[in-house]
């Protein structure tokens, strides 16, 4: 293995200041993509940007120049409706050209509003139907174990996604198998498409639920990049269990007039709102 094909994260993590700047740039791009493509789910994308930045700049052993490297860490965006945030992250991380993001949602583009299989470099799995990603990740983790690989598997889910029964099938299987190279993150923004996630189904107590299912659970501020990086770099954590980060987040995070307003699950920003968002993010 030459250095070109080696995972390139082994060295240092960018400073917090730099990570925060990356987050702001990605947030601005995600708002712009939603505006240009008329793409929904903006609030959901914004709530998980810091989680994506912490994973891709702070923890994952990956090489954007060799996205299929067998020993790479895997990252599955199980909440596929945040595709714009994933695409922007991958582009800024170097998996493909940033200009390609301008094609998002446009006719003929492979950057669809939910990630397709094997289309964009760095996208590990096609998602969009909720409740699949955790099981896909379990399969990848078992494959790694059988093949003697030491890679880790990260899965980013939504809180609404925990409505799906298959999530809990996967939760039990992963802990039953002691898959301690798995890290799942719940983007716990307390909203799902049409209501408060706690009111639609009894989600609380979320941490205790996952603990009861045999996971090593940490609650974290999902916008605290330093805390996220520290937890994501500690996989496995010595417990012998799969790890769950219950990441408390704010839907629409970073744009004052979108924060915790569930209208932005579907609403599209107009040109004026895009401008205001970019000013708030310090990009204009």
């Amino acid at each position: 293995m030459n250095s070109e094909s080696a995972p390139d994260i082994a060295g240092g993590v960018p400073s917090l200041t730099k990570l925060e700047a990356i987050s702001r740039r990605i947030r601005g791009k995600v708002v712009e993509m939603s505006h240009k493509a008329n793409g929904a789910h903006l609030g959901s994308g914004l709530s998980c940007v810091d989680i994506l930045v912490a994973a891709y700049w702070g923890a994952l052993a990956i090489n954007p120049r060799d996205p299929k490297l067998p020993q790479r860490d895997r990252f599955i965006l199980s909440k596929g409706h945040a595709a714009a945030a994933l695409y922007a992250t991958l582009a800024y991380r170097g998996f493909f050209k940033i200009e390609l993001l301008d094609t998002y949602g446009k006719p003929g583009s492979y950057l669809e509003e939910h990630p397709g299989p094997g289309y964009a470099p760095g996208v590990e799995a096609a998602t969009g139907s909720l409740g699949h990603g955790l099981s896909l990740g379990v399969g990848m983790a078992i494959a790694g174990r059988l093949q003697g690989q030491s890679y880790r598997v990260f899965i980013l889910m939504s809180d609404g996604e925990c409505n799906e029964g298959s999530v809990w099938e996967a939760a039990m299987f992963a802990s039953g198998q002691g898959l301690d190279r798995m890290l799942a993150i719940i983007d716990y923004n307390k909203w799902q498409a049409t209501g408060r996630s706690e009111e639609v189904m009894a989600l609380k107590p979320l941490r205790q639920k996952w603990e009861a299912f045999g996971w090593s659970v940490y609650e974290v501020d999902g916008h605290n990049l330093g805390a996220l990086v520290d937890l994501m770099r500690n996989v496995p954590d010595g417990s012998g269990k799969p790890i769950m980060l219950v990441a408390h987040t704010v839907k629409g995070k970073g744009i004052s007039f979108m924060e915790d307003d569930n209208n932005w699950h579907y609403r599209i920003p107009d040109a004026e709102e895009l401008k205001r968002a970019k000013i708030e993010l310090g990009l204009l």
Partner: protein
Amino acid sequence: MRNAFAAELTALASTDERIVLLSGDIGNRLFDEFKDRFGKRFLNCGVAEANMVSMASGMALCGLRPIAYTITPFITTRCLEQIRVDICYHNVPVIIVGVGSGLSYASLGATHHSCEDIGLLRMLPNMTVICPGDKWEVILALRAALQYERPVYIRLGKKGEPVVYEQAPDFVIGKGIVVRAGQGICLLSTGNMLPVVLQAADELSQKGVPAQVVSLHTVKPLDEELLAAVFSGFNVVASVEEHSLLGGLGGSIAEWLADQPPQKARLLRIGTADGFLRCSGGQKYARQQLGLTPEAIAEKTLKMYRAGI
């Protein structure tokens, strides 16, 4: 069929380290040898088929060759969306194996019947649907599926079915096997109906029509070359399956036929009715109720044959 499947899978696993067997909490004794020899590559996935199927996709995405096995309705209709998205959309080489297909487990009630699975799975893009007719076809289907870099569904019966072939026939995915040559009537069988169809051909022969029997083990892709030949060479072509008339072998042939110019032969579809069996009874009883006996098949086909000449 299932014993042949387990034995062949164990043999194949000794030469292919990519093979992983996922079981939905069944096959307790059946896979003992596999477990003894390849313990880590056997995963009892519990009664959680959705997770099992998606996991299989995750494994295939990492280079393994997972085979997901449980009772047919639970590994088809129960987790159809997982098959569609995680296996077919990703187009990964996962083999889905359903055991107890059709009315094999008739006595267990309609929850355990599967007369819709062929139709549902053949609708899915990238999926190949194979319904072996005896233990030889099971063995050969499994070997062929492992060489096929795409999703495959193998629809098994149960155990103890009659063995049709004296030795391994030539088996190619998508190509029917002419089990008995004949004329006038051509019986196209898929899956576990093959021994019954051969008996139906015996009946027809005694009544003066030496019917041809084809094992159309692959329902998708259809053997269009063979269909073109039999529809131009026979008077009656009958599809026979332990599956609904909607969407199965007969349904797919009817779709094919609709796109062809007028043919010499008429199509007769023989299968199960559009309904649930609502009374107790084993497979033999269920087949009697639904007209899937050699006598009923012979009578129906002969009636159409005589009406047409």
